[in-house]
């Protein structure tokens, strides 16, 4: 006990308490996390306000005699007539290694029931994006482990690739698969307006796959106030920027920005800001552009780190031309478009390869992957064109039939169950085999079985070859010959002993 008293005495020994000048105001109106305050004549826009009792707010609307502010945390403690102080600070969140493996709220406070977070540093939630001089072009791939994405819609470190689709089309699964596939990349998953049960399931999945150790989950569930949902992606980005400044590569997932826009719309309407299209305020574009612009690939002088963003947008009945989807499509460097029809047809991930695009990722793709992606894209495009035509005609010439058969097998190869990302070299070899026609003799139903056994066989017998593809990142003539030999031998074995060989 005496020790404790002495410790406290030591702490306050050198303390100099002085008269503080404070700028104050009085709450005149309060409701749904938004307060109107009279006074605060010196307040600055986006300044942190102290409502007392550990409740803080953010000044957003500065008017002649009053200030409109949003309240973070428990706004039921704020009553009319309550005094409010300015703090002279802007909103900051704790950042650093201490956050890894934790689930935090939009203010960086733990919500996983574990110990308090002892972070040394703090970063401002709102920050101006890095300028042109500090950046460099995207040149390193970020492997998602999903064949359809890594081959045809490659993502580079520092890129912003939108994942867009209706509800229940597997958007979050793609994001989680990508997190699971990362080893040297720090991941930040920002859940905005989602069911708490869904967040809990996701955290459990990450824990199960051992991916939580390099992940921070920023959770602003649907039961959290709109203000917390509004701030969560900015907080997540601040946490990511810390690691980027340390020269690390970071992946951030915003799940999802439609709900973020809803939260902002709610706040803006309560603040009585004029509404525009679909009742969103006029600056809803800037809301997302200033967030996504913070993703960058820094140059060597600025630490060589990167922040890759995978924002998610949920469309209503596949309507891509709605306000928020078009906004975010125009901000990002490409989009992965998921379709309900494909999903229910059993093509999972339900990526519409025709509508999906990656604007900068191609520059980051390795040579070997580029080599297989070219013919794959062409074969699939021809398949899609012929497929529609083939539905009306029963007798097809052999060339057309073989194109369709090839396309069906390629589609089968691109199917992938959730939470099972593939390594780059595995993706390269199976897609190489498919585009070279080695799968043409295999029954479509057996393609997945073939793929599994083929990769297992290569891992067992051709370890060196797989290692070379991984290291050299290209397929030279010698490698191709070896691959041809190994594939031919395996196809023969599979045709003899496997169930999948074509009859007749």
């Amino acid at each position: 006990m005496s020790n404790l008293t002495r410790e406290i005495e030591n702490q306050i020994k050198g303390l100099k308490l002085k008269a503080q000048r404070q700028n104050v105001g009085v709450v005149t109106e309060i409701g749904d996390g938004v307060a109107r305050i009279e006074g605060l004549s010196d307040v600055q826009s986006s300044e942190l306000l102290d409502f007392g009792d550990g409740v803080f707010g953010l000044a957003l609307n500065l008017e002649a005699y009053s200030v409109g502010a949003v309240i973070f945390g428990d706004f039921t403690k704020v009553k009319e007539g309550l005094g409010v102080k300015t703090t002279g600070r802007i909103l900051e969140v704790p950042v650093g290694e201490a956050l890894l493996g934790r689930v935090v709220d939009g203010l960086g406070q733990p919500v996983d029931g574990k110990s308090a977070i002892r972070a040394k540093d703090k970063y401002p939630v709102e920050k101006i994006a890095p300028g042109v001089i500090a950046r460099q072009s995207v040149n390193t791939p970020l492997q998602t482990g999903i064949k359809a994405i890594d081959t045809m819609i490659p993502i580079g470190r520092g890129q912003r690739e939108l994942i867009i689709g209706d509800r229940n089309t597997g958007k979050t699964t793609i994001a989680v698969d990508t997190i699971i596939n990362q080893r040297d990349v720090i991941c930040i998953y920002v859940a905005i307006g989602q069911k708490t049960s869904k967040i809990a399931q996701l955290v459990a999945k990450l824990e199960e796959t051992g991916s939580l150790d390099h992940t921070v989950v920023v959770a602003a569930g649907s039961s959290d106030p709109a203000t917390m949902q509004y701030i969560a992606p900015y907080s997540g980005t601040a946490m990511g920027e810390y690691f980027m400044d340390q020269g690390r590569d970071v992946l951030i997932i915003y799940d999802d920005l439609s709900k973020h826009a809803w939260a902002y719309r709610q706040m803006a309407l309560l603040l009585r800001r004029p509404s525009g299209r679909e009742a969103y305020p006029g600056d809803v574009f800037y809301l997302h552009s200033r967030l996504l612009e913070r993703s960058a690939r820094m140059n060597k002088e600025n630490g060589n780190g990167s922040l890759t963003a995978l924002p998610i947008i949920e469309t209503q009945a596949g309507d891509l031309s709605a306000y928020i989807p078009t906004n975010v499509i125009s901000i990002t460097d490409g989009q992965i478009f998921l379709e309900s029809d494909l999903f229910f047809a059993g093509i999972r991930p339900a990526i519409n390869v025709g509508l999906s695009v990656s604007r900068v990722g191609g520059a980051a793709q390795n040579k070997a992957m580029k080599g297989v992606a070219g013919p794959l894209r062409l074969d699939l495009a021809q398949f899609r064109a012929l497929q529609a035509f083939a539905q009306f005609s029963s007798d097809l010439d052999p060339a057309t039939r073989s194109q369709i058969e090839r396309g069906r097998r390629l589609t089968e190869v691109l199917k992938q169950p959730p939470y099972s990302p593939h390594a780059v070299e595995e993706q390269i070899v199976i897609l190489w085999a498919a585009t070279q026609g080695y799968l043409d003799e295999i029954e479509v139903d057996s393609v997945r079985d073939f793929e599994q056994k083929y990769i297992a066989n290569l891992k067992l017998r051709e370890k060196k070859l797989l290692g070379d593809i991984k290291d050299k990142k290209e397929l030279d003539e010698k490698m191709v010959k070896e691959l041809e030999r190994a594939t031919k031998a395996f196809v023969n074995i599979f045709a003899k002993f496997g169930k999948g060989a074509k009859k007749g």
Partner: protein
Amino acid sequence: MKQDKQLKKIILNSVQDSFSFGRLLESQVVKNIKLYKSLPTSKAILALTEYLTGVKRKLRKHTLVVETNCPLSLKQVEKIKRIVAKKYQITKLESKINPDILGGVRLRMGDDIYDESIQSRITQLREVLEKEI
């Protein structure tokens, strides 16, 4: 909407005109109120509310409120006023007894507060200790 904005601008200017060296010009206030009353009802309500809020706010800005937990002598009050007048234009002085501040003095001029009270020191101490923990 545009008209409202213009009206608000006019009101802001008339609030400024209602004061001279921090003192309220009553004749000017009466004149302004008469003018705003003559507007159509909906506009008159808006104009009068805005004008009176503005006047009250400006009046508060030039009023020094001294809060203590026991009464101060006239000399002490005058000394405080002299110190504050170096930085603020004070035209009115109010003394308040507030036992909650426990001791010391708290000065208020409009939205600005200078807190030299025991209560403020305890709060500061609590914040420091909470941060350490």
